[in-house]
C-alpha cells in the first residue's frame, strides 16, 4: 500500500485472530487528517480490538495474530518498532485508569518524562499545563496538582487520562468508549474537548462508541462494525441520513 497524501489513517486488509478466533475480518478504511472517525457497533463486535490493532496494544494479548496493513501518518505500524509507533498515538480507555500511585501532575508528566521529550522542569510544567488545558481540566485541578487522582470524579479522571495521552502530542488519538463510564455532564465536556482539539491541533481522532447518537453528534466519518466485519463506512452525514445497509439502519434505531 502506498501512502496517499492527506490521509491520517489507512487500514487495508486487516485481519486479527485471538486464540484462533477471527475477531477482525478484512477491514479497510481511510481517514483524512484532522477528522474524527467514529467506530460504532454493538458490544463484542470487535471495535476495541480494531483500536488495539492500530497502536499494537494487541501485541500484549497472548496468542494474537495480525495480518494486513496499518499506516498512521505514513508510518507502517507493523514494520516499525512498536514502542516508537505507539508514541505517535495516544489512547484513552473505557474505564478511567489514571495511575493510582501518581499525583495528577505526575500522571500527565510521566509520558514526556520517561520518553525524554522535555529538557527542563519548566518545559515539563508548561507541557503539563498545556495538556490539562486541552483536556479542559486545568481550571478544576490547577490548585491541587499534587493530589492523587482518586480524589477526582470519574469524569475528571477520564479527562486526566485524555491529558496524559495529549502530553505526548500524538498525531492520532484513539478513544475506547471514553464516555461509557462517565456522567452526562462530563461526557459533554469530553466531546467538547475533542472538537476543540481538532480545531487547534494537527490531530486525528478515532473514537469507539456504542451509542449512535454520540457518533452522529461529533464525527466526520462513521465505520459501522458488526461481528468483526466492516459493514459500512463513509461520511457521517451520508450514513446518518441515508444508510445503505439494513444492519446500520437497525443499529441507528437502537435495534441491534
Amino acid at each position: 500500500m502506498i501512502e496517499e497524501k492527506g490521509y491520517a489513517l489507512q487500514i487495508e486488509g486487516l485481519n486479527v485472530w485471538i486464540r484462533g478466533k477471527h475477531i477482525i475480518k478484512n477491514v479497510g478504511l481511510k481517514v483524512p487528517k484532522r477528522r474524527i472517525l467514529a467506530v460504532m457497533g454493538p458490544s463484542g463486535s470487535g471495535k476495541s480490538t480494531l483500536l488495539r490493532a492500530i497502536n499494537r496494544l494487541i501485541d500484549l494479548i497472548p496468542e494474537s495474530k495480525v495480518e494486513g496493513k496499518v499506516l498512521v501518518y505514513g508510518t507502517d505500524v507493523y514494520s516499525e518498532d512498536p514502542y516508537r509507533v505507539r508514541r505517535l498515538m495516544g489512547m484513552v480507555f473505557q474505564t478511567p485508569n489514571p495511575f493510582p500511585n501518581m499525583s495528577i501532575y505526575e500522571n500527565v508528566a510521566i509520558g514526556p518524562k520517561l520518553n525524554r521529550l522535555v529538557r527542563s522542569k519548566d518545559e515539563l510544567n508548561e507541557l503539563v499545563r498545556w495538556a490539562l488545558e486541552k483536556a479542559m481540566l486545568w481550571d478544576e485541578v490547577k490548585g491541587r496538582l499534587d493530589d492523587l487522582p482518586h480524589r477526582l470524579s470519574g469524569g475528571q479522571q477520564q479527562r486526566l487520562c485524555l491529558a496524559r495521552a495529549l502530553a505526548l502530542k500524538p498525531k492520532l488519538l484513539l478513544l475506547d468508549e471514553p464516555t461509557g463510564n462517565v456522567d452526562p455532564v462530563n461526557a459533554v465536556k469530553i466531546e467538547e474537548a475533542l472538537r476543540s482539539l481538532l480545531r487547534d491541533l494537527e490531530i486525528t481522532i478515532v473514537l469507539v462508541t456504542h451509542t449512535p447518537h454520540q457518533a452522529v453528534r461529533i464525527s466526520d466519518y462513521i465505520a459501522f462494525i458488526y461481528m468483526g466485519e466492516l459493514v459500512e463506512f463513509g461520511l457521517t452525514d451520508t450514513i446518518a441520513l441515508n444508510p445503505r445497509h439494513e444492519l446500520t439502519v437497525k443499529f441507528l434505531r437502537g435495534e441491534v
Partner: protein
Amino acid sequence: MIPKVDRGFFLTLLPFAAVIFALFALLAYVLAYESWPALERFGISLFTENVWKPSERGVEFVKYGLLAPLYGTLVTSLIAAAVALPLSVATVFFMEEMAPYRIKEFFSSVIDLMAGLPTIIYGLWGLEVMVPILRSWVMSPLHEHLDFIPPFACDPLSGASFLAAGLLLAVMIIPFMHGVIKEAYRQVPRTYREAALSLGATRYEYFRIMVSLIRPAIIAAVLLGLGRAASETVAVALVVGNAFNISPCLFAPGYTISSLIANQFTEASFFPLMENVMFAGSLVLLALGMLFSGIGVVMMRRVRELYGR
C-alpha cells in the same frame, strides 16, 4: 516466543531466574554426591538399623544406621499433626462461622504472629517452660497411674522426649495447617453453605457437611503439616532429648533426622563418613517432604477444581 523488541529485557532478567534454577541443580548434585559414599558403604541398612559407631581411626571401623532418628521424626511429626489437626479445624470454624468481627481479626493477627515467630523462641520456651510443666503435670502422673500402657511405661527422666517434641511441633504447625484449611473452607461456594443451613441443620451438622466438602484439603493440611514438622530443626533439637532410641514410650528421649544434624554435623567432619551419613539423612527428609507436599498440592488443586476457582 519472545518478540525481538523485548529480547533485551528478557536476557537481562534471565540470569536471576537461572540462579534459582541453578540452586536446585546444585542442591540435587550436592545431596547426591555427598550421600553416595554412605549409601554405597551401608546400603539399605543405613535406614533399617539403629547404630551410631563413629570412629576417628578409619573408615573400616565406623558403622551407622539412621533408624532411630527416622523413627523419632515419624513419631514426633505424627503427634504434632494429630494434635494440631483438631485445633486447626476448630480455629477455622470458629473464625469463619462464630467469632464476631473484632475477635476474628484478633485471632487472625495472633495466628500470623504464631507463624512468624522465630522458631528458636519456641525452642527456648519449650525447653525451659513447657518441658518442666509437661513433666510434672502430664508425664509423671500418667506414668505413675497408667504405666501398664506402653506409651506411658517409662519414667520421664528430664522431660525432653518424643512427646515434648511432638507437642511443641504441634504449636508451631497450627498456623500453617490453619492456613491450608482456611483457604479451602473459603472456596466452598456460598450456595452450598446456604443450602446446608436452609435444610435446618444445626451448626454441628453444618460443620460436618463443611468438613466433608473440604476433605481433600484436610488431608492436604495433614500431609503439609507432617512435612513441616519433620523439617523443623532447632526447636526440636532442644526438647527431643537427643538420644538414639527406638521406644514405644513417648516419655523417652529420642532423635529426629534434623535434630541429629543440628547437633552433630559441626563435629561430623572429624569422623569418616559421618557427614555423608547426614547428607543421606537429609536426602530422605527432603524426599519425604517433597512427596508429602506434592500430594498436598494435588489435594488442594482438587478442592480448587471442585469449586471452580
